[in-house]
């Protein structure tokens, strides 16, 4: 297990170095994305003005406070609490995020499925696990909300965050077909029969 620090945006070569079980700390920039954001981007053909190539997106819809726009705050929002939502609902958007928008890293909780694992392997991407429900801590890794797009979907807008020492995150799925979620699921399925037998419910 190796620890990596990645400055965003990153390259395919950076991603190929990561192995499931490694840990990663991200620096500089992170984009927030959610169910409605991706439904509008990929099912309804909306486009973002942000360049997501080589970037990381996190499955989130933050708690924010409205503030005056300024030179350093184009968004007009400051963070109240930023955390992470369950990724599984957004499984079918992994490939379009990578193919159309050039995203390299998806951050979330609970993992993604086999289609995503395949997309990460073919296109050079990975899934980084953040600890769900630890949002107060996660918020301390966010330096600022820099900008926002598709804000009619608020809170499920497309957010651009400035980040500092975002992590450590766990490489849950790598670009070589590795998935900690698949490994655990396999172990759990293998234990199921014995668990049911003990309950008298085999």
């Amino acid at each position, binding site marked *: 297990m190796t620890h990596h620090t990645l400055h965003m945006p990153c390259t395919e070569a950076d991603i190929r170095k990561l192995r499931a079980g490694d840990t990663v700390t991200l620096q500089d920039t992170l984009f927030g994305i959610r169910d*409605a954001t991706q439904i509008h981007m990929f099912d309804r053909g909306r486009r973002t003005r942000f360049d997501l190539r080589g970037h990381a997106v996190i499955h*989130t*819809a*933050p*708690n*924010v*406070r*409205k503030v005056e726009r300024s030179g350093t705050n184009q968004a007009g929002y400051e963070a*109240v*609490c*930023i*955390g*992470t*939502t*369950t990724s*599984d*609902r957004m499984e079918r958007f992994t490939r379009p995020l990578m193919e159309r928008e050039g995203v390299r890293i998806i951050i979330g*909780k*609970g*993992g993604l499925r086999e289609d995503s694992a395949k997309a990460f392997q073919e296109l050079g991407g990975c899934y980084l*696990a953040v*600890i*769900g*429900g*630890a*949002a*107060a*801590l996660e*918020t*301390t890794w966010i330096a600022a909300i820099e900008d926002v797009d598709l804000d009619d979907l*608020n*809170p499920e807008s497309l957010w651009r965050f400035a980040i500092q020492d975002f992590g450590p995150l*766990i490489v*849950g799925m790598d670009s070589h077909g590795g998935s*900690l*979620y698949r*490994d*655990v*699921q396999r*172990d*759990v*399925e293998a*234990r*199921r029969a*014995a*668990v*049911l037998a*003990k*309950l*008298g*419910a085999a």
Partner: protein
Amino acid sequence: MTVLAPPATLRVDPDAIEEAAKLLYIRALKVLPDDIKAGFARLDATESDATAKSILATMIENIGVAERTDNLLCQDTGIPIFNVRVGRHVEVDGWALKQAIRRGTARATREHPLRSSVVHPITRVNEHTSCGLHVPVINIDFVEEERVLALEMIPKGSGSENGSFLQMLIPADGLAAVKRFVVDAAIRAGGKVCPPTILGVGVGGTSDLCMHLAKVAATRPLGSRCEDAEGAQLEAELSEAVNSLGIGPQGLGGDSTAFAVHVEVAATHITMNPVAVNVQCHSARRASATFTPEGVRIGF
């Protein structure tokens, strides 16, 4: 002939309910109940997997960060649920109470501010008040205790709420099928429901009552037991079973899949054998206000 004086009543003002509803929503989002903190300490002491132990440590660290920075534990402000228990000799305008809970919820959302996580199910329009049709969910029950009105607030997060399962089993399936259903629900939910969880199980009733029982079970304090002896027995067996699966915190493996499995039971029809599962995530948030003649007590 002796005329008995009517018993003294507790009068609860809707404005006080509104203030309490606002306060409880925010407090629930920020301070985890003591029983859940103790649950974390217990899991941390017994977890044998290194990754799982580090994940639990991060969760425990987050509880402290939330309190020190006066911030929300989790970004998910949830669907607001209010459980109201009205004792005997309590005078309250029930309709006004429901309106007061809505106003308090909307004010918490605007004034803190909080993310409104509530949308119309068809248009998906968000009113940014955490309110909508039939939301907040308000459950009202009447209890024997005198001159007490208790308001319990539960912000129910979606990651765990999406891990809800119901099956109308039949008598011939037996209790074995109920147990199998719960184990398979835990497997299906995996890491998506933010384990370690409180797995709530409803057994019996009608379909809607069965799911309500599962929700009551999932949101009961840790350490409490099912009042029905058979239900309590099932709780113990299922807690051990679910924690033998190896799902672990966040679904990344380990012993700590559930703080506990809680069971609630209700009588059912001779032809029915319903079972429901509802999950509470590790951010098992609650807050309560208890109105008595002595004043208002804020707690969990």
